[in-house]
């Protein structure tokens, strides 16, 4: 794994902590690039032919595939190795951060002469879905505060995401933001957003990349979690980027109508219940100016070729939902939900930027859907 790009908020591991982190990254890589994919081989070479011999047909549903797969030692063992690696990842990174937490909290305190701003909401009531499930099996989830001024969750997510990706999503975890900015600029060369908002910005890695993609725009990032926006602010300041971070719920922001030309949420939909995603789309529409773009990850049903039924893919595509505390993301229909928010179908577009790292082993590359507000 290449070393992570340095900034002032990155925890400094000692020798043994650093090698343990590299070992977990190797385990993540082994799981993703070697273990997971072999499930399909086992299914195609052994399980499906045996099923056909017994039933005169191939398995037709994800439930049938699940039954076959869960009966194999390979699926069960490879799955628990993946789960164990994920649990170990947070615990390994967390040890280093906790040791330096007082120092990181001090470094994160907003300074005079900052380029951007940090606005907290002490009255923020944490949504129930945030309190109930530690997404990605990250203990304490995005929002837990261990003391006043805490930034642990932000540091954990920045360092943890880097190791999860074994360094393959850019030295500054910037790949998704960079790809999205590039995609928008190449599709719409005349689009010059004056203000951009990233909803659910967490540690602010995509926010920084989007600011780099649109350097003339005023950049804003919001998240329900105080430790995330505190960390994101300090990280961006340390990297010399002017960004306005605030603690806000994307489903009910404090921004005036029509304030932004570009509103994005990146890989947030799968971390929220459907009604929250839908409310967030409506809120995004409200705070968009006419001619502005809303962008999120997903597909346009009516413009996506109907793939041949693949019950194995349907089963394995849900691996992270079942094994990595990602229980949400079901039932979303971007076309329907964007239309309910106010966008017209003919104003929607979608794209799959090239160069996305294939991290979850068994889901297709990220596709994005955008819509212009009239």
């Amino acid at each position, binding site marked *: *794994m*290449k070393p992570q790009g340095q900034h002032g908020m990155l925890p400094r591991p*000692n*020798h*043994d902590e650093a*090698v*343990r982190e*590299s*070992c*977990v990254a*190797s*385990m993540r*890589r082994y799981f993703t690039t*070697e*273990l997971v994919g*072999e499930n399909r*081989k*086992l299914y195609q*070479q*052994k399980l499906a032919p*045996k099923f056909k011999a017994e039933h005169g047909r191939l398995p037709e549903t994800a439930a049938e595939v699940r039954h076959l797969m869960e009966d*194999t*030692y*390979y699926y*069960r*063992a*490879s*799955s*628990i*190795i993946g*789960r*164990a*690696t994920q*649990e*170990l990842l947070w*615990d*390994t990174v*967390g040890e280093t951060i*906790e040791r330096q*937490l*007082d120092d990181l909290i001090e470094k994160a305190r907003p300074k005079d002469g900052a380029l951007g701003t940090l606005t907290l909401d002490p009255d923020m009531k944490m949504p129930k879905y945030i309190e*109930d*499930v*530690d*997404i990605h*099996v*990250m*203990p*304490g*989830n995005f929002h*837990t505060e*261990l*003391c*006043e001024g*805490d930034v*642990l969750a932000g540091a954990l997510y920045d360092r943890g995401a880097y190791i999860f990706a074994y360094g393959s999503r850019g030295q500054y975890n910037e790949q998704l933001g960079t790809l999205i900015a590039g995609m928008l600029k190449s599709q719409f060369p005349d689009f010059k957003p004056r203000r951009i908002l990233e909803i659910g910005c967490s540690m602010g890695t995509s926010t920084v990349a989007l600011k780099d993609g649109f350097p003339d725009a005023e950049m804003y990032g919001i998240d329900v979690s105080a430790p995330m926006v505190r960390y994101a602010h300090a990280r961006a300041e340390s990297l010399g980027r002017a960004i306005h971070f605030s603690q806000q719920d994307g489903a009910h922001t404090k921004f005036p109508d029509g304030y932004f030309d570009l509103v994005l949420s990146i890989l947030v939909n799968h971390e929220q219940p459907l009604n929250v995603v839908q409310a967030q789309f409506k809120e995004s529409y409200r705070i968009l100016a006419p001619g502005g773009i809303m962008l999120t990850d997903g597909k346009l049903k009516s413009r996506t070729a109907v793939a041949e039924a693949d019950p194995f893919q349907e089963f394995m595509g849900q691996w992270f939902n*079942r*094994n990595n*505390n990602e*229980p949400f993301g079901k039932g979303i229909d971007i076309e329907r939900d964007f239309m309910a928010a106010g966008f017209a179908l003919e104003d929607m577009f979608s794209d799959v930027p090239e160069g996305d790292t294939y991290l979850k082993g068994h889901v297709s590359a990220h596709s994005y859907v955008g819509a212009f507000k009239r």
Partner: protein
Amino acid sequence: MAETLTNPEPAKRLPRKRIAKGPARPQYFENRDLDRMMIMFVALMAEMMAIRDRLDTDEALLESTGKLSAEAIESFQPGEEREQAREEARLAMMRRVFRVLREEFEGDA
């Protein structure tokens, strides 16, 4: 007296959480204790790899300076080529340790 009693305690920091909240961990093996054993086993394997990396640091320092010190170990950076070799060694270790997973690929499933 009453004043000292109402004085707030200095703000304390809670310990970080180490167990995730949410849906119960899926059951993988025939009983959940076996699952926990496997989670310990995976953690131990990481510890073992880390010891190997530390030995590699020692060897690198001995080769280049002829001596070892805690300070030199702490400030050692493996560099790209050495890290790549460590990565290959870790992957090779996992392929050896998890060899038995390949059983069902041979013969009848």
